[in-house]
């Protein structure tokens, strides 16, 4: 009898578990169909812009607690797609829009310099645009050819589709392809990490992310600095663009206005970005 009892108990327990599982599961499924309460806006896209968007959103929300901004990554192309389909109200792109994407309303919110970086111990500190192109195309394969060690150059690039890579491709490589032998890393941070650890590596990252562990290369003798970019001397400059699929209104409008306000622009200037007003559009295309 006692044994039977405990068996029954076990069965009952099992049943309870089963039932609760089914209930839980159906709630889970149901919740997929329920629309989440509309609370604020979503901004998604370029991982290069994301950290800055996070800051803007943080300050914006502390100012207007009732206006919620969700920041998501995903990459430039995904961000533009999301803005077109309406999955997010604002898309972020760190490359120029393609012709078929021009249906969107664009706002240039900042400018970013692209910097060629090497290891601090590397004696090379100046390269011409042509040399950079040849190094990344795999034609110059030894540092010796550009005045450095007699060592093979380890080219580090970003993955296909990355906004930073697209910008580098357009501004430096032109029609040339980046060598297949290049090491591929999937963020600005990891490129910097690789170059900071490898004396023979070369890579490219955002100006705002350059720090002491890597050395910024002068391009045709020009230091990649905010001053040189503003004075239109340093040419590797790309826009950070926000896109919306209609004329913005409501929170979207407030948020973009905040970003373009002096306060919003000061916020990113501290991080090494160049405020939108300091550079005219189209400058990066001047050659």
């Amino acid at each position: 009898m006692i044994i039977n009892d405990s068996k029954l108990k076990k069965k009952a327990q099992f049943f309870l578990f089963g039932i609760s599982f089914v209930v839980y599961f159906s709630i889970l499924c149901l919740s997929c169909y329920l629309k989440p309460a509309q609370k604020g806006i979503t901004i998604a896209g370029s991982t290069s812009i994301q950290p800055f968007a996070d800051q803007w959103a943080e300050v914006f929300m502390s100012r207007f607690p009732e206006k919620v901004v969700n920041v998501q990554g995903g990459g430039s192309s995904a961000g533009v797609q999301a803005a077109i389909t309406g999955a997010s109200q604002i898309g972020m792109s760190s490359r120029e829009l393609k012709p078929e994407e021009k249906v969107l309303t664009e706002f240039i919110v900042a400018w970013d310099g692209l910097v060629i970086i090497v290891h601090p111990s590397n004696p090379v500190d100046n390269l011409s645009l042509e040399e950079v192109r040849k190094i990344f195309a795999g034609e110059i394969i030894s540092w010796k050819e550009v005045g450095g060690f007699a060592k093979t150059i380890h080219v580090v690039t970003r993955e296909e589709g990355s906004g930073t890579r697209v910008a580098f491709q357009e501004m430096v490589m032109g029609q040339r392809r980046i060598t297949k032998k290049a090491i591929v890393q999937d963020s600005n941070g990891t490129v910097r990490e690789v170059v900071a650890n490898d004396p023979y590596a070369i890579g490219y990252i955002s100006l705002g992310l350059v720090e002491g562990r890597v050395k910024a290369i002068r391009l045709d003798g020009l230091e990649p600095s905010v001053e040189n970019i503003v004075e239109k001397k340093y040419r590797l400059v790309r826009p950070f663009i926000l896109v919306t699929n209609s004329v913005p209104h409501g929170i979207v409008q407030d948020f973009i206005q905040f970003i373009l306000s002096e306060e919003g622009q000061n916020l990113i200037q501290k991080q090494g970005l160049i405020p939108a007003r300091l550079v005219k559009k189209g400058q990066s295309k001047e050659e």
Partner: protein
Amino acid sequence: MRGKENREKLIQLFLLTIALSAISILALISIFIFTEGLPIMFRHGFKKFLFSLDWYPSEGYFGLLPMIIGSLLVTAGAMVIGVPLGLAGAIYLTQFSSKKVRNLVKPMIELLAGIPSVVYGFIGVVILVPFVRENFGGPGFSVFTASIILGIMILPTILSISIDSLMALPPSYREGSIALGATQWQTVRMVLLPAARSGIIASLILGLGRAVGETMAVIMIAGNATALPRSILDPVRTLTSNIALEMGYVSGEHRQALFATGVILFIIIMILNTMANLTSKRMAS
């Protein structure tokens, strides 16, 4: 009495549903991958996907051969490192060590399986990559580095399942062999390993599966270059890292090409699994 029977049937039905849902998830995933990945392969031709060396997805070149070879190389390298270590460890811990040592060492090695792969990748980047670069040459991100890290990652799988299958053998096998005058090593080699082979092969299959499928650690340490590696010190890209690296940005054909990568990975894993199953069956008969 009838109430009991009904209850029994109900439980059966309930368990059946759960079992079916597991299978249906597998079916859904396969259908999804194939419907997303196959059209582009038909459009461009299988040959282009399987045998072309050029991966320039934005220009419409989708050659996956470097990644296929990359996946196979890295997996083979991991097996070369992980299998001897795992087997030797299992043999030592079951046959030669004291129970105390086994009870101490086995859980510690199993703990290795609980370390997230991103941590392995991080350790690889910080310690192993510079070490390989300084002592062996090349950029450090390489087939070799990835093989070492993956070999360590599959070690706990191989070791713990091999130990379990060796321990599951009836003690009379070992005792009989020793009684006949065989040395301990002869016993292991000629009696115990053949008797436990199905479990050991299962451990190898699981290890293989983990090595082929590992993504995060490989992205961090393999270098991900799309060129065909010329030596084990060259960087390499695997099928899994190809998907994970470019997934974030893709749209259109590029996206479908990544699903096609998934299709090929799927097929490769099926082939490896079938091969392993066949060998284990053949060895059993």
